[in-house]
């Protein structure tokens, strides 16, 4: 029992420690593909460290929401990391505290507070970015729901560990058309939720074109560091759900010894890096969509997920 709690905490530490690295590698790869040198892969660590050293400035008119938000944004991915398979293929201590829907709600809580805080400051760009994020959010929501319902219908459960078990067993399950379609739909969701390029440009510096970034413009010092770190962890957690539960359920630890769990860390990291390479290629080969084209992008994701549901429900 104590061992499982320890592993669960180890899982959280891995998410906290490695998430800036994944962001750094993604940025570096993107710059390299566009034949630029780019910052080193450890740059996000340096950024976060630097920001923790700086003084924090809080707008006079803002309320407690503005001050509490960085902590909420930082803590919510950690809670989700307790619920999902990051390193192990078997359920850990907290695994049955919440299912995938619960995880989705916890992540949405962070997004909700970030939106409120952006409106709280009185900076004109904040509410604009916030309302745009909500637009992307409510278009992404039905896709999330249908993906989760289809997945849990196939696996007979909404607990991510059990879903993951279902994909591991026969290889034939992997090739099912509904599975491929779900993977595509979820990939489009990750792009939309993570603010990656066809939807949002994460490295843009033009406030009028920002969607996700402009919410954090007012933060400085420790608040900015926590927001940045929390964003990186949210991305990492989404990648873990995508890769460990839906796409490649291999390489997770199945034994109860510490050695096996430690061995799973490089394997999971390798999977994530391969996916990040694919993501960098996607980001470099598309242009950012116009704001009102995002409806179409997520509409396509919705249709894909519905097609997955139909092929699954009606073929049998």
């Amino acid at each position, binding site marked *: 029992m104590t061992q499982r709690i320890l592993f669960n905490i180890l899982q959280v530490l891995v998410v906290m420690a490695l998430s800036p690295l994944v962001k750094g590698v993604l940025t570096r790869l993107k710059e390299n593909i566009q034949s630029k040198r780019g910052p080193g892969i450890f740059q996000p660590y340096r950024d976060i460290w630097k920001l923790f050293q700086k003084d924090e400035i809080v707008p006079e008119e803002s309320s407690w929401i503005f001050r509490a938000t960085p902590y909420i944004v930082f803590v919510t991915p950690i809670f989700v990391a307790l619920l999902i398979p990051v390193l192990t293929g078997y359920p850990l201590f907290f695994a049955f505290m919440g299912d995938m829907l619960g995880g989705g709600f916890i992540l949405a809580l962070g997004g909700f507070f970030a939106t409120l805080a952006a409106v709280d400051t009185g900076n004109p760009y904040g509410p604009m970015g916030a309302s745009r994020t909500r637009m992307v959010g409510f278009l992404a929501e039905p896709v999330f729901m249908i993906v989760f319902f289809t997945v849990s219908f196939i696996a007979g459960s909404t607990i991510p560990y059990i879903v993951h078990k279902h994909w591991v067993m026969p290889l034939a399950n992997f090739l099912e*058309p509904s599975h491929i379609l779900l993977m595509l739909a979820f990939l489009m969701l990750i792009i939309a939720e993570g603010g990656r390029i066809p939807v949002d440009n994460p490295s843009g510096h033009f406030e009028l074109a920002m969607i996700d970034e402009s919410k954090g413009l007012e933060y400085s010092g420790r608040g900015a560091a926590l927001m940045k770190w929390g964003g990186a962890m949210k991305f990492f957690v989404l990648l873990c759900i995508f890769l460990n539960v839906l796409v490649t359920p291999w390489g997770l630890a199945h034994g109860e010894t510490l050695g096996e769990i430690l061995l799973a860390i490089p394997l999971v990291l390798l999977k994530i890096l391969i996916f990040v390479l694919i993501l960098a290629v996607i980001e470099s080969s598309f242009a950012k969509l116009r704001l009102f084209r995002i409806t179409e992008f997520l509409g396509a994701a919705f249709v894909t997920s519905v*097609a997955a549901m139909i092929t699954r429900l*009606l073929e049998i």
Partner: protein
Amino acid sequence: MSDPQAALLVCQKLNALAGGLFLLTAFGMIAMRQVLASLNLFVGQSILLAAAAFFLGLQHGSVHLFVVAGITVFVKALLIPWLLRRIIRHEIYARREISQVLNIPTSLLIVVGLVMAAYFISSPLLRVTPDPFIRLNLPIGLAGLFLGAYGVMVRREAVPQVIGILSMENGAFFAGVAIASGLPLIAELAAAFDVLIIALVMGLLTHRIHERMGTTTVGRMVSLKEE
């Protein structure tokens, strides 16, 4: 589970995969705004159709389905795109949006409804047969047929309409290879040749229309033009 049975299961799953992606390309053709992207999706769809025919051939052990796959790849993935690109070059490479009656999100929602309708229409037919290939291919082929027809209805330009008709044909073929796998080879050959001629005639016609009118936007040609 014995070995041939396992191989059969893998074959069936691969066919299902081809079917799922086939459906996705059909959706993609509705969602695309440019002619070239539509044409590329059509090529992809034809290759998936050939793949499905290939897996069916593996399952039934029939050589002539392999030939059908070969003909499909040759005619639909190579010859027709080449022909269209040659005859109506400026239309294919036009970097503008296809003019449509409905906007794309609405189209996508309607199309989802059409796919559901395809499944519901084919479900009474599927009760007759236990063959998993037919159970998968018939509804998806039917959906491909509906989506192609929808594309023809909604788009106001000649070239996307040609691509729509060709993709309808793909859908019919996708269902056909599973239902009538005993069809004589000569019929398949004739069908493939037919499609080629259709593409050629329509391409030439479009080319002429473009020469005469300076546009192929069918929607604008409701009133007759006097010489």
